[in-house]
């Protein structure tokens, strides 16, 4: 096993992009876990320091006097105290982005994990039992696949209110169909292989065969699917936030971006920074996913 891991590791790391992706993700995970201990409270509001630009930039702040009709304008420079600037409530963007990384990864990993678990169980069960079970499960998969995914997501989140956990559950409950089908077809071809046949003859329990033998063998697909699903989920959460259905109590990157997008031509950094992070993170996962896919592809 160890050697196998090593082998795939080597094959994956052959791609420089995949290596970059992995390094980025590892750094991101470390930042997400430990960062908040260093950056301070992302919810600490200080209206006296609102709309500060990032270090190296400056911006004019104007306040209108409704009696005189005049503006009072001061030029504000970015400071090291808030290296990435602040938002319109004076919250430190660095702190927000770091805690946002936590949220994005949390959503991405949990929702993907849920979808993968459901998809794998359904796919493997379907393939292993075949017949009526297979038929019923695959018809159900068809119904779920036919549902316009994003519409369903918006519908449920709108109806039941935007909470992060609901979003995760909904993505998980609706996003498993592709995995189920892939796992099923992979498991089908595995099922016909000798060692599984042998196990059946030897009288191993179904549960044992599924969990000890079938699933580990489709693990490679699952790993690859996970890596390429996570960015999709992160983007879906961002898109929900973009249309105002993000969890209002949590500062995910999508929420920050949404808050900043109306003032792109003034306090641009509020939208630009999470946008870049979102983009880089998705990119990194895609790089890694691609590298993994190549590594697991025996024809390469």
């Amino acid at each position, binding site marked *: 096993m160890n050697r196998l891991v090593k082998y795939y590791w080597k094959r994956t790391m052959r791609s420089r992009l995949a290596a970059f992706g992995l390094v980025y993700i590892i750094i991101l995970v470390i930042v997400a876990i430990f960062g908040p201990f260093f950056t301070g409270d992302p919810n600490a509001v200080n209206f006296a320091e609102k709309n500060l630009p990032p270090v190296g930039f400056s911006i004019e702040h104007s306040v209108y006097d409704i009696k005189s009709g005049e503006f009072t304008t001061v030029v504000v420079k970015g400071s090291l105290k808030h290296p990435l600037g602040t938002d319109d409530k004076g919250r430190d963007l660095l702190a927000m982005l770091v805690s946002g990384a936590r949220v994005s990864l949390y959503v991405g990993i949990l929702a993907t994990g849920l979808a993968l678990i459901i998809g794998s169980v359904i796919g493997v069960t379907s393939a292993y039992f075949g017949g009526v079970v297979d038929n019923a499960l695959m018809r159900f998969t068809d*119904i779920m696949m036919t*549902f316009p*995914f*994003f*519409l369903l997501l918006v519908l449920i989140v*709108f*109806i039941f209110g935007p909470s992060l956990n609901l979003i995760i559950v909904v993505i998980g409950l609706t996003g498993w169909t592709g995995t189920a089908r892939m796992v099923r077809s992979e498991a089908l071809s595995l099922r016909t292989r000798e060692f599984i046949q042998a196990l059946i003859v030897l009288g191993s329990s179904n549960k044992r065969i599924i969990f000890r033998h079938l699933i580990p063998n489709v693990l490679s697909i699952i790993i690859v699917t996970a890596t390429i699903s996570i960015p999709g989920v992160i983007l879906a959460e961002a898109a929900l936030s*973009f*249309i105002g259905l993000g969890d209002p109590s949590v500062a995910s990157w999508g929420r920050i971006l949404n808050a900043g997008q109306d003032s792109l031509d003034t306090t641009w950094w509020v939208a630009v920074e999470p946008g870049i992070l*979102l983009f880089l993170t998705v990119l990194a996962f895609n790089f890694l996913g691609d590298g993994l896919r190549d590594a697991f592809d025996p024809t390469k």
Partner: protein
Amino acid sequence: MREYILRRVIYAIFIAWGVFTLTFFLLRIGPSSPADKYLATLVAKGENVEELIAAVEARQGLDKPLYIQYLDYINSLLHGDWGWSFSTSMPVMELIKIHWKYSFQLILLSMLFAVFLGILIGVYSAVKQYTKADYIATFFSFIGISIPNFWLGIMLILVFSVKLGVFKTYYDTSLPMFSLANLKALVLPVITLGTGSMAAYTRYVRASTLENLRKDFVRTARAKGLPDRVVIGKHVLRNAMLPVVTIIMFDLSGVVFGGAYLTEIIFGIPGLGQISFNAIFADDYGVVVAVTLIGALVTLFFNLITDIAYTYLDPRIRYE
């Protein structure tokens, strides 16, 4: 074949019924009601609030028991009546009839853009594997896949409409559908919506082409003295497209209800996506159910088309 299609159609009806039922009950079990949005405005003197809410619900037929509503709904659907949209004051079907074309043209052009460029770049990249051009194409396709399309749209407007003034900041529905001006107006939305798909197709086409380039029949075609153009354009591409067709079709429903909506919002295109999402926010049940149902039917239809197309693309496949 005919029997196969018939069976598929019956199956599609079954699936559509499932989707319909799920949507219907999902809408009804939620805590929000169409009366909510009126609440703010209905209140005049306290004691009448609930009475007025009841009036709204009665007007929309929401006061009956749930199963009666469900059966009534199915009954009127079977009679071709899709109901009245209370948030836009027109028949649901007419609303959809008017607005589907805005989405359709956007989606069609984006798909053309994505498919055409995706195939072109993908094939080129595969043929030139490990060259600089291939690396550049690969890199940009990753960027294309990763860039959030709503973000891209905003940036495009900022640069091309506001700063450079090349395009209008919003889509103008008064332009004739088949006109150059309309095409120009759709450039930014199409890029916004199509880039992600295009980049994804590039990846798939490249992989698929690479796989097929290694096939024996490609060597045969070369040995026959066919120029590269024919070898790749005819022999490789046709085989390479087989897996890609499925992906494109699968992608389509995602594009219609995900990307298209965001793009429509950003560019102010009153397409079906925007209509349906506004209906969700307005608790306009008739429209939500209709759009979901139609979405499901369209997906099913495309699945069928894909399967039939396969019999032409790949003669090895036959359905009984």
